[in-house]
């Protein structure tokens, strides 16, 4: 793809004109290059990475998610386009002998947590409801942008789930499950609202293939770490940290992705070959029947990397005058700092009576009235029974 450079030039005048001058580093290639550039049909990339397990012994699930996060960031998807959901905090967990780190390789070779991580949903926020709301876009209006999946019909989305699962369900935080039917329906809602162009779904749980059995929307490709009836196994423990660091499938997936760079031409068929039965012990599966393009022509970077399409323009834009801040009338009175603990003021402060109670005399009068009416109606002979 042609690399486009543009720089901004300023003129020293009161009314500043900004002219955008854009130049190519290389001229347009032949029709083939341009054709391939536009063949994928997507203009932006999103990633939704979810770890659904809580508690320290599920360290490997957080490490799985963070290693995919790291690869996806390295290949170009910015933080604003990644929704990262971690159900528990392993890095600053009190059991972690090396705080602020999450390792994927034993002997602490690779810290996938890094120094520049932004987690959007963490702790108790990772629920089935929030996950489905992120996918379908039905979030409350005050949700900040970093927690939304603002994809459109030209977005390629990568969805990665990991945790504990079974035949047809995935367990969220030890208290609820999401079933494969719900997931398939969520994707169908996304398709009907045109929220994705193509979607790659990767799941690393036990019996993961059951989760993609029920998909029925177009343009979905799915990968799972094990077939129905098989368990996904974990890779290697680290004796200093005391837990298993990664799951086998994601470990080999990470090693595969470490060889990919933003301009590489590896396609999906290579991804299907990651972690054969000899390494993984379980049989990874994939599903491509709903996908319109041939998997051999789909690049890894179509989902794991980010495409930035730029438009070249020669127009100039006139910037208006900067808004001069209104100075306002000069306040004659002086401001001052407030007394932090004004003891006398506090003692004499009366809390406001919020609830209205009827005055006591009113209640007494009401009861007297009731008694009088009663005795008038039924006669005074009852009086001696009362008193």
């Amino acid at each position: 793809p042609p690399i486009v450079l543009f720089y901004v030039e300023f003129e020293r005048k009161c009314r500043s004109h900004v002219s955008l001058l854009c130049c190519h580093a290389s001229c347009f290639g032949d029709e083939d290059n341009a054709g391939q550039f536009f063949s994928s049909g997507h203009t932006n990339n999103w990633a939704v990475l979810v770890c659904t397990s809580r508690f320290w012994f599920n360290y490997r699930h957080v490490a799985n998610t963070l290693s995919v996060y790291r690869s996806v960031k390295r290949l170009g998807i910015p933080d604003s386009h990644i929704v990262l959901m971690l159900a528990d905090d392993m890095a600053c967990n009190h059991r972690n002998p090396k705080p602020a780190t999450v390792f994927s390789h034993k002997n602490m070779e690779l810290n996938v947590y890094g120094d520049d991580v932004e987690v959007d949903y963490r702790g108790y926020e990772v629920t089935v409801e929030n996950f489905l709301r992120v996918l379908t876009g039905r979030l409350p209006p005050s949700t900040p942008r970093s927690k939304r999946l603002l994809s459109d019909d030209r977005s390629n989305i990568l969805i990665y789930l990991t945790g504990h699962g079974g035949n047809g369900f995935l367990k969220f935080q030890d208290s609820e499950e999401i079933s494969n039917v719900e997931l398939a329906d969520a994707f169908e809602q996304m398709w009907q609202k045109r929220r994705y162009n193509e979607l790659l779904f990767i799941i690393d749980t036990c019996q993961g293939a059951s989760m993609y059995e029920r998909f029925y929307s177009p343009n979905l490709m799915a990968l799972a770490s094990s077939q129905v009836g098989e368990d996904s196994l974990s890779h290697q423990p680290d004796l200093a940290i005391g837990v298993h660091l990664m799951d086998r499938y994601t470990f080999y997936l990470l090693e595969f992705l470490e060889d990919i760079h933003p301009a590489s031409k590896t396609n999906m068929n290579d991804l299907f070959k990651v972690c054969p039965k000899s390494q993984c012990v379980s049989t990874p599966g994939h599903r491509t029947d709903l996908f319109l393009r041939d998997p051999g022509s789909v690049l890894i970077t179509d989902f794991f990397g980010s495409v930035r399409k730029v438009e070249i323009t020669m127009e100039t834009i006139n910037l208006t005058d900067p808004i001069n801040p209104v100075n306002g009338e000069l306040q004659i009175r002086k401001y001052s700092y407030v007394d932090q603990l004004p003891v006398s003021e506090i003692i004499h402060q009366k809390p406001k009576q919020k609830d209205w109670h009827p005055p006591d005399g009113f209640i007494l009068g009401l009861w007297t009235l009731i008694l009088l009416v009663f005795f008038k109606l039924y006669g005074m002979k009852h009086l001696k029974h009362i008193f």
Partner: protein
Amino acid sequence: PSLYLGSISFIIGLSSPGNPKDDFQEELVIRPLHSGDIYASFQFRTVWETDFMRGNKVSHYRLFPKSLGQVISKFSVRELHISFTQGYWRTMQWGQPFQPSPPGAELWVWFQDSVTDVDGTWKELTNVLSGIFCASLNFIDSTNTVQPSASFKPLGIGNETDHRFLRYATLPREIVCTENLTPWKKLLPCGSKAGLAVLLKSEKLFHSSFHSQAVHIRPVCQDWQCKTTSWELRQTLNVVFDLHNSAQGKREWSLFKMFSRTLTEACPLASSSKIYIDITDNPQGEQFEVSPATPLLSQAVVLGDRRTFSVYDLTQQITFGTVRSLNLLIRWKSSEGDMLRPLLHAERYVAGYGLQTGEIHTLMYNNHPYRSFPVLLLDSVPWYLRLYIHTLTVTSKGKDNKPSYIHYQPSKDRLRPHLLEMLVQLPPNSVTEVTVQFERALLKWTEYTPDPNHGFYVGSSVISSLVPSIVAMDTNSTRERPLFSSFFPCKEESSYFVRVYTEPLLVNLPTPDFSMPYNVICLTCTVVAVGYGSLYNLLTRSFQIEEPSPGLAKRIANIIRKMRGVPPL
């Protein structure tokens, strides 16, 4: 990019003179503690002479971060204080911090008078802040928000203080990790690329006994006349490094040991960039020695005491010496001397047994030998601990101590928490104990967290007080002072304002057995299968007599007899 922006603003500054000025200062204070640990406090302060208050459209942001500026103008915020803390500040061993903070997340906001629906604006503000700081602040809702009636007066300037516009909430369970530090660092003008912020490496900062990062936004006086206001943003980071974790037990601290980095330059956008090392306990250099030596000394009155500091000015090139990098080294020679006991500190714990009732005890210690002073205690207890306020007792030295002001707002189930504020006079050299009994409520089974056996947190109590000071405090707020001494405004010379937080409490609520529905289904199905099934069989089964099949010899004999036409055996 920052240089680019600097040159652009310079050009625009030349062309349009109405641009408000902004200023950025950074400082680091290092205070060795008596237990061998070391306390480092970073402060980054941006002052901007603009006015968000009267609905002015501000569009040109330079040093002040745009995300916070937009938050202030959109939600009509007058003051915002948010802090994220991991660990608990141990007052008895470490003294008083420069900026106190409770464990977890704490947020308190003063809104402007123009806000009509404070609760709605508060909810939206917490959601936006949760996106900016990558924290789950969206869990702040009416069940943990209170409106204090006397505590948390504004720290900035202002003439009216109507407590209807104040909201306070705390999340004691909130975890602080690199994902909170990353956006915090991105708010700084130089980011984490130059200046003191290069020392902020998460692997070292979170491997400490105490870590707290905070953002404080408030309006301040622009000059001594105080007729116009400017906006001040302070980002503070306090960290206490443990002697055994970070220094391997050897009492020798250096910037490299603490932060795994050394300093090479000051932030180019900063007007002042200084490091202060507290050498008050070391007047002649007999306890520890600081290298490289510096001729600059400074004295400041902070927390009621006059302290002496060695100053390193990073804007001067000679500070970095010939190696172009600064690695301060503090080496101890002898470890004598004891610490001045802090005048005010507090503790809190839960007493009682069982899962039905309990008692909260709050102890406040006044260590001044002859002066008494008033403290304001703020307690916010969640609704699921039902407080019995008629059992509230306040005792000092064994006798009843009646508070001069009590404000109590009872809780409403699932709507709002208890709020208890009391103004208590602490007698000199005494312990004041506040006790109140409570009963634990049973929650609905959907309201339990995924790990309910961990327990439920009750936020820290806040104790605000004006403590008598040993030396005269500086009440002139416009004189040039180091940042750490100008955090709390000072109105009188004989006392200084201090805020102490107690420990948060962890209480266990009666937790149901969540596997019970599964067990019940299994048991019911088994009972139905065995009981009903047996009964059904007994009623509808009919028995038929069947002859056992004969042996092999007999079968052959029967076949021969059938062939012969004779009846079988």
